[in-house]
């Protein structure tokens, strides 16, 4: 059975935005090099003249009140994957047909639903309930089902006996070919599948010999008629590791909750160890007697399955739980996991019991202080000082970068925002002599510079001023990194301003 979700993107958007938003002409757009392009349009949009593939500017000319929303191809694909698993209610396995189709194997299944027609009715009703426009077809081969779903009558059923006759009238686009192959066929005057049968196989093969065998009309025709096998990649559900505890007596006290949580963590560790996995994310669901569910989530810096560590981190998140009349079910799920093999313990027992490991420590810090607070600096390819370093998660792998050239010394610390200073100088583009910063005057005893750092012209406007950096030491030996923003008479603003950017060791 082939399922074509003809308007998947719009249906998803309508589901998220609500029915009311559908009344106005709306299009989903993608940003391209030539401005936004329309991916899909709703009914009102289609009536107003917007079409998929059109530029947004052209559509706006037809209908000035056109609303736009960003299209979400990744989200559509993820939704299609979950839909493929859901569609396994009609057959033992299903496959994706990106971007907007599904294939379900219903061989020898139809009698469970009372025949193929009733199977199609059931599927059509189910998709309609979910608010999805679906065109369905059943055929002996996947290719034929796809062709009928896209180009045949809705809910078509093809038996093995009349296959060739009914498929012959479909357009050649039903063969799942690339656009340029279709163009060649159209130029040759071949419009229907039946017309291909009138041409010798050798001639067809020779005409398209430069293409990969999967993309030629001959292979597709053979797959359509079942002369050649067509392997499909089934979607297989991998259930997340999940452990749960149902409690005879609802618990209302924290100590009991902690104990149950510790037990759950041990169960989860065993479950994960059996699959040689470690958890990166965990979700703890607490079901209350009155049906309320509260969920606590946890993210780890590195894959782990240490029950004590898990229980300890969750304990910090359970302080504001409202137990109400009691909690009767706890469920621990690991939505994100990574392979984690059994590791050799340290020979020296002391080395393991002494202190915590790095990833455990990072987890504890992140849970209490937040993800934004715990980071590490990494080099970034830019010569602008504040862009030359970025911050990332502490245990994430560092990207390869070019080694830093030690031509110039850099300050030990950099202020988040360069602070303006008042500078006394002999000549406008000469060395500074004295400056005032945070209400105190510093006499410049020594200075090195200027180190001229030009703006990144490929990224910034042409009016951005360059910077002349000076490394200076004042009379008391305090060392700073200051810069003059711009030059006198560079035509990019008034007289140059001075800033203090960093503090040197």
């Amino acid at each position, binding site marked *: 059975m082939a399922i074509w979700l003809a308007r998947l993107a719009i249906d998803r958007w309508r589901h998220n935005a609500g029915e009311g938003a559908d009344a106005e002409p709306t299009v989903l757009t993608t940003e391209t090099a030539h401005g936004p392009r329309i991916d899909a349009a709703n009914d009102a949009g289609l009536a107003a003249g917007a079409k998929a593939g059109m530029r947004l500017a052209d559509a706006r000319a037809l209908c000035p009140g056109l609303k736009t929303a960003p299209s979400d191809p990744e989200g559509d694909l993820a939704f299609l994957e979950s839909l493929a698993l859901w569609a396994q209610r009609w057959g033992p396995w299903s496959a994706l047909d990106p971007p907007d189709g599904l294939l379900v194997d219903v061989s020898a299944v139809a009698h469970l639903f009372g025949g193929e027609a009733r199977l199609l009715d059931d599927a059509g009703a189910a998709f309609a309930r979910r608010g999805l426009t679906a065109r369905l077809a059943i055929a002996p081969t996947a290719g034929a089902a796809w062709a009928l779903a896209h180009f045949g009558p809705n809910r078509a059923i093809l038996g093995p006996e009349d296959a060739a006759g009914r498929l012959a009238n479909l357009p050649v686009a039903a063969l799942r070919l690339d656009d340029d192959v279709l163009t060649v066929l159209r130029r040759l005057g071949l419009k229907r599948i039946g017309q291909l049968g009138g041409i010798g196989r050798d001639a067809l093969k020779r005409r398209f010999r430069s293409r990969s065998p999967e993309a030629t009309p001959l292979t597709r025709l053979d797959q359509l008629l079942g002369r050649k096998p067509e392997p499909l990649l089934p979607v297989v559900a991998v259930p997340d590791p999940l452990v749960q505890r149902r409690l005879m007596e609802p618990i209302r006290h924290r100590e009991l909750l902690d104990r149950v949580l510790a037990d759950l963590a041990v169960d989860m560790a065993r479950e994960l160890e059996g699959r040689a996995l470690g958890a990166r994310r965990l979700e703890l669901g607490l079901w209350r007697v009155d049906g309320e569910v509260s969920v606590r989530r946890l993210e780890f810096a590195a894959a782990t399955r240490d029950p004590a560590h898990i229980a300890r981190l969750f304990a910090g998140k359970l302080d504001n739980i409202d137990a109400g009349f009691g909690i009767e079910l706890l469920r621990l799920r690991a939505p994100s996991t990574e392979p984690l093999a059994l590791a050799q313990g340290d020979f020296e027992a002391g080395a393991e019991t002494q202190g915590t490991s790095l990833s455990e*420590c990072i987890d504890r810090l992140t849970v209490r202080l937040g993800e934004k607070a715990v980071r590490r*600096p990494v080099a970034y390819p830019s010569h602008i000082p504040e862009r030359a370093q970025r911050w990332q998660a502490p245990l994430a792998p560092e990207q390869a970068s070019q080694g*830093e050239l030690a031509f110039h010394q*850099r300050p030990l610390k*950099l202020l988040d925002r360069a602070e303006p200073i008042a500078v006394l100088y002999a000549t406008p583009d000469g060395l500074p002599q004295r400056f005032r910063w945070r209400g105190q005057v510093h006499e410049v005893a020594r200075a090195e510079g200027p180190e001229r750092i030009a703006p990144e012209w490929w990224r910034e406007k042409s009016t951005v001023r360059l910077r002349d950096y000076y490394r200076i030491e004042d009379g008391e*030996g305090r*060392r700073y990194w200051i810069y003059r923003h711009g030059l006198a008479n560079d035509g990019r603003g008034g007289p140059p301003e001075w800033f203090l950017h960093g503090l*040197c060791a």
Partner: protein
Amino acid sequence: MDLSAFIKAGELGLGQRAPRWRPGLGGALHGEVFASARETGGTAAALALVMDGLELGRRSVLWVQDAAALRLGGRPYRPGLPEPLRHRLIHIAAKSPQDLLFALEEGVRCRDFAFVIGELAGNPKALDFTASRRLTLAIEKHGVPLMLVRLDAARDLSSARIRWQVRSAPSPAPQWNAFAPGPPRWHAELFRARGHTPGEWILRDDGHVLTADRLAPLAPDHGDLARAAGDRSLAS
């Protein structure tokens, strides 16, 4: 009258003299550096002092700053850090002194950190004598050194085993450009330490070793008369 309970004259003597602090001695694990927030000499000296004679191995380094210290002194800048620290640094921007103390304690409990450095502005209530004793106990238990930089702070009560007052000192002229700032030097005053007599030094770190030149004391120095107290664990 039983005299055996009293200390004998020989035991009353000075015994071993207290050693003077010098680089490479392997200092106390818990140190404090007092410095002005208008310069970063204190932090640089603290890094030099804690890295003096320390084998980093494959371990990381934790650097914790509270919000005020971050605002006053800026963030660590990777291209300007000492070379061995650049790829090891993990930075924590703590919102409050309480968070900073939590992060410091978690840091010294972790066996994968070579050392922990903290920067704290002022004298917050959270860092009282009890909190600093708590830190010392954790440090002694796990053996990870901690150097806490106190910006614009008064010398309050603390159980830190070695306490410095640091300010930048004029640098020597570099070899090629006499007008340029040279390699950094710091004026460090050791005002309280267990097992060492106080004194003043000019520290400099050429990237490999820390060297210190002792300044002549202004007042007569009775340091040699002090008896070596030795270091003992706070817990015992």
